[in-house]
């Protein structure tokens, strides 16, 4: 018997189609995706960085472009970015920028405007070896007790300045305000190079592989979508699980279809 779950389903985290083949109560499944494929990679080829920003409200594009341009980020902006990245609290972002999810807060060279608050406080069964082989990233790796903290390992931004102990359950930060943020200029020179920029997003490691040519537009803009990679283990996780566990397992993988399909 074959059961179709999705595409339109309240618990499908967006538009995901699962072809489930239950054998009694045990399940096997095949995920079908692409219903939200927008062609973000293709679109990026014809856009300048500033034009493309609204497509991604994550700092990865800025990290990539920032690195290629060797732009110095002011210290305060650096701290603010760390806090925003780490917390990703939509109510905090909403207070700072007036928008919930499409905030466009991060800009090249810093952030658009200052934080309103003075103090902030943060916040299926698979083995470790297997997870590395499937290229899963941080939250899932850490749930299996693999000590891989992306920011610490890559000295991302100013994480070194925070005295952090990797805590499995909860993270806590205290911020303080610094002086003014500089505004970046609207256009700048970028070198002809390849770059694999990546960052730690709340759900895992997000990457952009960027090949830039002399025209100033990307020759190739590959989005290493973390949900896309994390979804691969779904059939594996479902083995020996019951039909009722599907929703819980999907929830624990924590995918966003918009990001997954890019």
């Amino acid at each position, binding site marked *: 018997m074959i059961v179709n779950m999705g595409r339109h389903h309240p618990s499908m985290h967006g538009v995901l189609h699962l072809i489930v083949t239950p054998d009694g109560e045990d399940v096997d499944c095949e995920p079908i*995706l*692409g219903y939200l*494929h927008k*062609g973000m*990679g*293709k679109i990026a080829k014809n856009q300048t960085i500033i034009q493309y920003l609204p497509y991604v409200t994550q700092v990865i594009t800025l990290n990539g472009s920032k*690195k*290629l341009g060797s732009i110095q980020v002011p210290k305060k902006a650096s701290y603010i970015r760390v806090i925003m990245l780490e917390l990703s609290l939509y109510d905090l972002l909403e207070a700072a920028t007036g928008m919930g999810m499409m905030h466009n807060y991060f800009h090249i060279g810093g952030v658009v405007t200052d934080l309103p608050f003075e103090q902030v406080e943060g916040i299926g069964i698979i083995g470790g070896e297997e997870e*590395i*082989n*499937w*290229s*899963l990233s941080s939250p899932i790796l850490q749930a299996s007790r*693999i*000590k*891989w903290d992306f920011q610490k*390992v*890559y*000295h991302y931004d100013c994480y070194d300045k925070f005295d952090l102990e990797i805590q499995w359950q909860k993270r806590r930060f205290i911020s303080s305000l610094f002086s003014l943020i500089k505004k970046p200029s609207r256009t700048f020179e970028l*070198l002809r*190079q*390849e*770059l*694999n920029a*990546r960052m730690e997003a709340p759900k895992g*490691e997000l*990457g952009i*592989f960027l*090949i830039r040519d002399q025209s100033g537009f990307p*020759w*190739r803009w*590959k989005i*290493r979508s973390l949900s*896309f*990679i994390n*979804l*691969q283990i779904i059939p594996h996780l479902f083995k020996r699980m019951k039909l009722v566990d599907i929703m819980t397992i999907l929830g624990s993988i924590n995918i966003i279809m918009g990001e997954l*399909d890019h």
Partner: protein
Amino acid sequence: KCGRDKKMQGRLSVWLVKHGLVHRSLGFDYQGIETLQIKPEDWHSIAVILYVYGYNYLRSQCAYDVAPGGLLASVYHLTRIEYGVDQPEEVCIKVFAPRSNPRIPSVFWVWKSSDFQERESYDMLGISYENHPRLKRILMPESWIGRPL
């Protein structure tokens, strides 16, 4: 830091030469990550060798056109995940294939995360990954004609 000296050979390249494994050093990318070219016919064995060497994490796999009407490239970013390490070793491998018949061995059997990623490269650029367990379109509808990228 960026490795602008073209004569400088990367660490992995030196190791591969020592073991008589055919490759070509393509220099370093913007972050100083070593980039190597491997031939399609050698890729399936060198992939296993790299895994044994310690590159256990396939961070990202993608494909691109080298030039209009030119070769197609399949790119693999590999990392070594180890406990308590600072600045892990990374390498970028490129495998070039002719546009007329782009066939590259799949590395699914070495790094499982190439499952979806190779399917995406197949979907978007048309590179055929041999021995992939289920090579079919992933983002575009199955009835789509053409290669978007």
